[in-house]
């Protein structure tokens, strides 16, 4: 059932869940959906029938998310599944990522759009290698908030000492990370519902919020909202018409740059720099279907008109003049390799897709690979296989306009596309440009 939320006030929280195979992740999601009344009768009935047919002892809530035939047959989750639920306070989108071998690729995918990650730990096992991997990935993808859900507390008699030991061990591990998210540990039992929606009487020593309370109230501020003003150009709106629009007047000369704000705020009158030409101009109008707007804010879509006739189109970027963006042919980036049939090697060539831009790219150097269990960097093997993470240097056929991923998740991210298969084979996060790699006018051939 979809709960009635107030559409003018309720905000959206996107989160991802990570845990090893038996940490109770599906049970937890099933619990959140069930207790928030987001599961419909016919869905529950269908799951009950399937569970019975499969001979499962309990109603298998994993069947709610595992919808594909192969998944149901093999009892595995193949892919990221998106689930939706709402409480009167917020709407939620869950990216549910499977815990088996392909988890890195799937967790990176789910994490790329998440504001928060729930990392599940089995209280009997404590912090294990998987916990560290999941936390590393959450940190790498710059998820601002982590919930450390210490699950199966019922199996350790809700012992505070066990919980405290796990939390302090976890906190010690996170000190070694380059970026440490805000961490909220919560002792829970997903199976019985302790501290999931309501406070549990079995953990009187825990004074923090229940999981759902935390999800409903946690303040997430994407860096892009407060950061530098960025507007990647998606499409140019030119009505080529002599009609007069009731809101915008004569359309003959209308030329609007359409896009979605990727950071900061723009207002009419702002001095801007328009890439790729790097020409200066000024914002005249900010338009939506409702007419003129007073400002363009992060995450929302607009059409922007400028005072001067400047050549820019898809792949271009409008930024505030006093908040410049990096422009370079060459940069270092962390990547996660997604292909299982091909490897990444130095000199590998790809299409690189960054914001609305598409350029050709060559891997000039593999700098190191990361062992995501030990966080050690190594240069022993410089080929990337499925799920490998590491740092590479990339040169592109034309300059791209970017920020470091640590500054902006939209203008700092890219994907690599295989030239033969057209498949998306890597996710990349830009670290920094290589200074003076090329002169301004250098022609690059790849």
């Amino acid at each position: 059932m979809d709960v009635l939320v107030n559409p003018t006030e309720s905000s959206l929280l996107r989160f991802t869940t990570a845990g090893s195979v038996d940490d109770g992740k599906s049970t937890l999601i099933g619990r959140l959906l069930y207790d928030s009344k987001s599961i419909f009768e016919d869905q529950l009935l269908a799951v009950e029938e399937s569970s019975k047919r499969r001979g499962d002892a309990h109603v298998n809530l994993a069947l709610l998310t595992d919808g594909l035939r192969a998944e149901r047959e093999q009892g595995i989750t193949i892919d990221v599944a998106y689930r939706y639920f709402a409480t009167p306070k917020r709407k939620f989108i869950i990216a549910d990522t499977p815990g088996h071998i392909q988890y890195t690729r799937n967790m990176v995918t789910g994490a790329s759009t998440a504001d928060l990650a729930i990392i599940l730990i089995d209280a009997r096992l404590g912090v294990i290698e998987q916990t560290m991997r999941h936390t590393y990935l959450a940190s790498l993808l710059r998820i601002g908030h982590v919930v450390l859900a210490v699950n199966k507390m019922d199996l350790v008699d809700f012992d505070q000492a066990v919980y405290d030991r796990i939390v302090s061990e976890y906190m010690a591990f996170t000190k070694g990370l380059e970026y440490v998210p805000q961490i909220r540990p919560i002792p829970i039992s997903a199976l019985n519902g302790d501290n999931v929606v309501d406070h549990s009487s079995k953990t009187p020593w825990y004074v923090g919020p229940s999981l759902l309370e935390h999800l409903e109230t946690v303040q997430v501020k994407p860096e892009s909202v407060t950061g530098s003003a960025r507007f990647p150009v998606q499409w140019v709106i030119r009505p080529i018409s002599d009609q007069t629009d009731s809101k915008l007047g004569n359309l003959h000369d209308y030329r609007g740059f359409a896009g979605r704000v990727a950071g900061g705020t723009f207002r009419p009158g702002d001095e801007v720099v328009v890439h790729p030409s790097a020409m200066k101009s000024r914002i005249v109008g900010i338009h939506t279907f409702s007419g003129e707007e007073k400002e363009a804010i992060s995450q929302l879509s607009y059409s922007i008109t400028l005072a001067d006739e400047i050549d820019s189109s898809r792949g271009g970027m409008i930024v505030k003049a006093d908040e410049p963006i990096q422009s370079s042919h060459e940069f270092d980036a962390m990547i996660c390799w997604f292909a299982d049939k091909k490897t990444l090697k130095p000199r590998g060539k790809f299409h690189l897709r960054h914001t609305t831009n598409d350029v050709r790219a060559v891997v000039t150097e593999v700098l190191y690979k990361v062992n995501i269990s030990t966080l050690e960097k190594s240069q022993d093997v410089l080929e990337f296989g499925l799920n490998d993470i590491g740092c590479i240097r990339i040169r592109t056929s034309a300059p791209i306009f970017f920020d470091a991923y640590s500054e902006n998740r939209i203008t700092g991210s890219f994907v690599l596309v295989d030239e033969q298969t057209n498949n998306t084979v890597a996710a990349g996060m830009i670290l920094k440009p290589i200074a003076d790699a090329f002169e301004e006018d250098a022609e690059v051939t790849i």
Partner: protein
Amino acid sequence: MSAITHLQFLESEAIYILRETAAQFQKPALLFSGGKDSIVMAWLARKAFYPSKLPFPLLHVDTGHNFPEAMTYRDWFVNEIGAKLTVGSVQKSIDDGKVQEEKGHNASRNKLQTVTLLDTIEENQYDACLGGGRRDEEKARAKERFFSHRDEFGQWDPKNQRPELWNIFNGRKHFGEHFRVFPLSNWTEMDIWQYIRQENIPLPSLYFSHQRKIIERHGQLLDASTGIIPLLDEEIPKVKEMTIRFRTVGDATCTGAVESTASTIDDIVAEVAAARQTERGTRADDKRSETAMEDRKKEGYF
């Protein structure tokens, strides 16, 4: 600065996807059935390219089994937003001998639509079709991408989908392949209704409570007033006049009604909030097997 609302986020995301589709493909089309999801999608497309007209046509795959109200609405709406309309006809596919009509009193043209859709895509050389599918509708849809790749036979390979990260969408393809694009992926049924209310979008009258002759078949309330659904002799005395509305509007042969007195958008929002069945619970096409939707999608269904 205040945070944006979830409807603002969803609207902006859908506009972003619609613009990406126009930019990344040579010849897209927007699949328009006259149902609420495709109405919302077309509404958003008008916003995305304003003050220009839509840079792609609306495409209606016409089963010939339409509620008349839906057709009246379709023609009014197309004119209202200044769009072009292309129609693919299932009747023509039948007349051309490309598909065979299902037999029996439960016969539906729902499955035949796939052939007409793929033929229309090929004839017009559309390389991307925008669909109003949502991930909350059905479990196979929960794993669908925004940009969903189809091979040259129009087939979907759910195990080999391209990962989608941040807001980067990869529409690269080989000649002859095409994409289905779903701008409303992250919307729920409630989001659709709240958006319709917020935007004051006019809808076909079928969505609101009205009196209709109904036949109950396999627990479903089916239309018995248009004559589209052939009745068995023993069913004729069981036809009842009921106060109903439709939660989804598709092919008349497989769209079930619900008993309802909801006559305004506010009533419907309240009704949807209290519903204990998914909206597809009224769809006979999904009840054919546990993976009916996945199987149809693999063949090239919407």
